């Protein structure tokens, strides 16, 4: 199929349709609204379900209901709306039904603004909803990747009966890039062994619930989820490497922060600095292992994020203090320019790095004197 110029949000919507999306429930919020608007037109054309819900609370529970029937279902939102969805997300995780959620992140906390940000990393990766659960979280950095990962998210959600979130910042949602759509997959209704679509004379009744009144049973459920998560960790880690073969400094960044870093890395390479980039594509499960290996052969890491260093803590866990980990972030909706990251690379080459100070504190110090 030929490449077309696709806007990130619309590309995600069409990719979901082609992956067999049978129902979409959402609520308008910038910078995500094009997903809703696109599907408002597209889904009825195909005879599929679309509802603009009364709130994100309504939307996530419609997703929950449809997910229980075993169809491919999705919602999308942006940061404040995702916060409202957290209740339903925990229930969906506890009920072990597959659902795909897209978060086009914006500046926060609170109402914040509508500019691109990555401040919901912790919410997506380290919980957000109550209780013990993990979601698969994919972080595209381009429109093509947004398409590919949206399709993948449905497959992963179904494979593991889990929530699969696609998190991107407003940049990826709003930008247009040439991209290729996958072929249209037929909508299929599997005879799962768990879905509640009516007995229909075929089987005994089924109940889907996140209630386990007996703590022992709840513990068993938690352990089942945890073991499933270990399988996901073993099989589903994805990342992209740039110039890592001889790198002495490795930048780690996801989404837009990662691709901005790529520009800085290229510039630094042109200046003869041996720097590479690791761009996590799954931020959950996180690529701990490759970072662990890299930390044995590189001099230092630089984590760049459009937040206050949320992924930074995961990188530090992986690196285990073997080499210095530095941090550079912009927040609140500010997108860094490549020069800012290049300056950090120059600094790391020039000065002796210390592992004594927490990288976030050191960065705050530098910001204060900038």
């Amino acid at each position, binding site marked *: 199929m030929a*490449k077309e*110029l696709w806007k990130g949000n619309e590309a995600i919507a069409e990719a979901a349709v082609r992956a067999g999306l049978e129902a979409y429930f959402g609520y308008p919020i*910038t*910078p995500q609204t094009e997903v809703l608007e696109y599907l408002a037109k597209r889904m009825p054309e195909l005879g599929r379900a679309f509802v603009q819900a009364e709130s994100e609370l309504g939307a996530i529970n419609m997703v929950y209901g449809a997910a229980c029937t075993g169809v491919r279902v999705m919602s999308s939102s942006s940061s404040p709306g995702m916060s409202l969805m957290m209740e339903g997300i925990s229930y969906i995780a506890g009920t072990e039904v597959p659902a795909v959620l897209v978060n086009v992140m914006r500046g926060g906390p609170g109402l914040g603004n*509508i*500019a691109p940000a990555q401040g919901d990393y912790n919410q997506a990766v380290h919980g957000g909803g109550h209780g013990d659960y993990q979601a698969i979280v994919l972080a595209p950095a381009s429109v093509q990747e947004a398409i590919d990962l949206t399709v993948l998210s449905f497959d992963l959600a179904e494979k593991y009966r889990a929530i699969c979130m696609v998190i991107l910042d*407003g*940049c990826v949602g*709003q*930008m*247009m*890039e*040439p991209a290729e759509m996958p072929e249209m997959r037929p909508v299929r209704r599997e005879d799962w062994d768990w879905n509640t679509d009516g007995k229909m004379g075929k089987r005994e009744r089924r109940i889907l619930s996140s209630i386990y009144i007996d703590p022992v049973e709840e513990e068993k459920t938690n352990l089942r989820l945890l073991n499933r998560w270990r399988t996901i960790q073993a099989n589903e880690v994805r990342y992209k490497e740039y110039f890592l073969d001889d790198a002495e400094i490795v930048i780690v960044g996801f989404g*837009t922060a990662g*691709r*901005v*870093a*790529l*520009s*800085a*890395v*290229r510039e630094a390479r042109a200046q003869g600095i041996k720097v590479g980039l690791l761009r996590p594509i799954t931020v959950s499960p996180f690529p701990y292992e490759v970072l662990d290996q890299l930390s044995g052969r590189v001099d230092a890491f630089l984590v760049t994020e459009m937040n206050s260093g949320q992924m930074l803590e995961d990188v530090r866990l992986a690196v285990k203090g073997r080499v210095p980990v530095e941090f550079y972030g912009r927040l609140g909706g500010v*997108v860094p*320019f*490549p*020069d800012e990251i290049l300056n950090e690379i120059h600094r790391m080459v020039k000065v002796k790095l210390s592992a004594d100070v927490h990288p976030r504190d050191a960065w705050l110090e530098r910001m204060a004197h900038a």
Partner: protein
Amino acid sequence: MQKEIIISGFGGQGVLFAGQVIAYAAMDSGKQVTWIPSYGPEMRGGTANCTVVIADQEIGSPLVEHPPLAIALNLPSFDKYEAMMQTGGTLIVNKSMVDRASKRNDIQAIMIPCNEIAEEIGDKKLTNMVAAGALLSALPEVSLQMIEAALKAHLPARHQHLLPKNYEALRRGFEFAKAQVQ
């Protein structure tokens, strides 16, 4: 090769579309390209801008701080981006909407009366295409023919009858800029 372009003006001047046309032309000629708008409240009548990056390889940052190429369709955009231009860059300025010359002598500011040219062609909505044509004089990677083909290929059917005037606007802008540079 990598070229970054910022196109800026009032909402309604066709800033975003001008960027998309250039992006389409770049895509159709096999280049990597990104187009990113400023989005949000400024869509409702304030200033609007978009950034287009054209390259041979995977594009990193979709945004640029100091562009080598820019179009300023109004005075606020001229004020803002004139100061941010890369040394040696080319800034297309809509002379119809500004009342001053460029303050920088290390960039090439091409002053072109886009509104008047568009009105001569018979549609003042073509201001953006006049400016886009002028920009091509400093962007050899995208030819007039490529951008005309892109317009034809991607303009919705209901707008196809506007193609001849769009072509004319592009050519007039291109020729005006060439003549001014010479």
